[in-house]
């Protein structure tokens, strides 16, 4: 190898060092959002049984400490849940459906007649049990786990989760 060739190789070596020093940490930095958030899910009290009437869905806000980047917002509404009380004797006594539409994530509303759910964005329609009644949404509204405390006026506690939009199965987001 001639001296000139050696020098050229060394030039490329230096360029590679500088390139890698920028590229590797830079990529890692930009890929940080893929890091697991470690956000735990827990059951939160949303309502009391006495606030619900059989067959009349009501929406409740889920209040949680929210960590937005570096800021901590204490008890922020992070989502909304439809609670539907079932007739006596039916188990579970309360069904919880997240208001986030399985189609593209808009907030699902109750239709004007109160007999079905309607998503305003692309007109998905769901029955009060969450079954799709047209073909817009790929899956039913997402049910959430419910715990009901004992006592004269039990508390309804719901585990709030998010699911991947557009999927035809319920896939929890980590």
């Amino acid at each position, binding site marked *: 190898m001639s001296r000139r060739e050696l*020098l*050229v190789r060394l*030039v490329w070596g230096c360029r590679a060092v500088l390139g890698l020093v920028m590229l590797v*940490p830079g990529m890692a*930095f930009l890929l940080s959002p893929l890091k697991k958030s470690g956000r735990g899910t827990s059951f939160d009290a949303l309502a009391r049984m006495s606030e619900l009437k059989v067959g009349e869905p009501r929406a409740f806000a889920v209040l949680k400490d929210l*960590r937005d*980047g570096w*800021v901590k917002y204490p008890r922020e509404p992070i989502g909304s849940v439809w609670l539907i009380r079932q007739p006596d004797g039916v188990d579970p006594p309360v069904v919880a459906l997240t208001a986030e539409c399985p189609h593209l994530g808009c907030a699902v509303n109750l239709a004007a007649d109160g007999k079905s759910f309607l998503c305003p964005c692309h007109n998905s329609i769901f029955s009060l049990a969450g079954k799709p009644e047209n073909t817009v949404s790929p899956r039913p509204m997402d049910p959430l786990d419910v715990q009901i405390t004992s006592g004269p006026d039990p508390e309804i506690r719901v585990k709030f989760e998010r699911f991947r939009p557009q999927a035809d199965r319920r896939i929890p987001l980590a």
Partner: protein
Amino acid sequence: MLKSLTDWIDDRTGYRSLLAWARDFPAPGGVGWRHALGPAFAIVFVLEAITGLLLMVAYSPSSSTAWGSVFHIEHALWMGWFIRGVHYFAGQAMVILIGLVLLQMVVTGAYRQPREFRWWLGLGLLFLTIALSRTGHLLPWDQEGYWSTKIETNIVAGIPVVGPYLQRLIVGGDDYGNATITRFHAAHVVVLPTLLGVCLAATIVLVRRRRTVTDEIARTEAFWPEQALKNLVVAVVVVVGSIIASLALGGAGLDAPADPSSGEFPARPDWYFIWLFHLLRTLPSDLRLVATLVVPGAIVSLLFLLPLLDRLLPKKLAHGLACAVVLAILGGVGYLTYGSLRADAADAHFREALAEADQTSDRATALAADLETGVPPEGSTYLLRQDPLWRGRGVLERKCLGCHVAEGKGKGEQTASDLAQFGSREWIGGLLENPSSKRYFGATAGAGGMAEWKRASKLKPEELSLVADFVATFAVVPDDVTPDDWLSTKEIADHPGLPLFQKECGTCHVVDGLSEGGTRDAPELFGWGSPRWISRMVRKPGAADRYGFLEPKHQMPAFPAEQLTRGDLDMVIRYLRGDYFKTAPAAKAH
């Protein structure tokens, strides 16, 4: 395959001739390390642009969010501390590199005609680099950046007539805040780098222009590959040095969030301005102008006029004089900087303040990192302002320790009790054992009631301890509970200390529904040590249910809301009760 692809691209774009133009030109003045400084400066500038762009992805320029976003970069994002560390240290290295380039130009006479413009562009690059470093220093909005900006812009304000206006323009108003950050940000990420890029491009054009290199052209060697390698080696050394510095010092460092109300932050300007700061603090105040205007003005003008000396003086003499001038400036700057560092090292007060600042920033880091606390939505300044440990202790020291003490330490003559652990089982237990200790009522004029009781009391140690247990339960009485509610809870009703309390304490101390008092004046004890009780004690110490029975001159002065805000009172109370975020002695992040 690859060859035919590059052939095709070359055919359509002609990029090879461009590369050849960039490489195959004769290096003016020959190949050498001293010619590598300038190109290395340019390479490092490109790396700064890349790391800067990365940081911009995660940085949020406002006084409430800047610190938090930088904290997030440092502690939450992958390699964030590394990228910020390299950006910071390589930026400092750029100041040194361009300084060396200029020095080299002076020593070798390269500043002289026909290369005046290269010298002036070099000076422009120096000032732009310093301005970049300076504006960047403020962006994290931490104590260090905040206070050093304040010092430096106050030096600017000392310039006669225009100074105050200039300062307002730089700061964006009267106060340092959002407007300061937005304009420093714009300057740092767009304006200054663009100007620097233009100066660099102009320099490169001039370097390649034959006219300006006539006296060097005799000795030319090919730039490629020898000089290219030297340039890159210097750049690699700078970058590796920055990485080592980041690793050794844990990154660029982030102080506690900026707080304009924080008492004494030991602020110093950036290292390249320390000499000016030292000059200003050593000169008598009527000579201030020397430091703010005369000296910097003279240096800048001298440097700019340096190439023109040739027109006045013989060539050799002019060069010698230029070298002497620059050496004198460097000597003076070095001497003043050294003087400043020595003065600081000898200043015990300064070192103490530094140590305190370090503790504050550790606390801020711990609070921001914890999921329970985090940066509050009001902004990073409130991270510490809403921390009972930090804020509560500060308020206690300022407002209470003139008379009280905490763990034996006060700020004046002790005329009241020791507030450390006030409200705890330990405190009340100690009081019942020895009320006339200085920790309790020993130093408090007129409050001899407990001591009198102690002399007469025949309680056995176990019984005393039960009474203390009972009284300590007062501290956890919630705000909305009445004495009735509380007395009917099972644990309280069955408490073995209750009958003893009733018999021993109840003769003087009133507790609704439990004891009548009356034998002697004494404060009401229901909820003693709870936020509600302490709050009333602070607001209305002269009330009938507190110490209204003392002679006015012996009473604690009241602290109404004008003197002690609701928030500050809460902070003190939570601090006294130990109700704050406690750090596990965990290893530092990274």
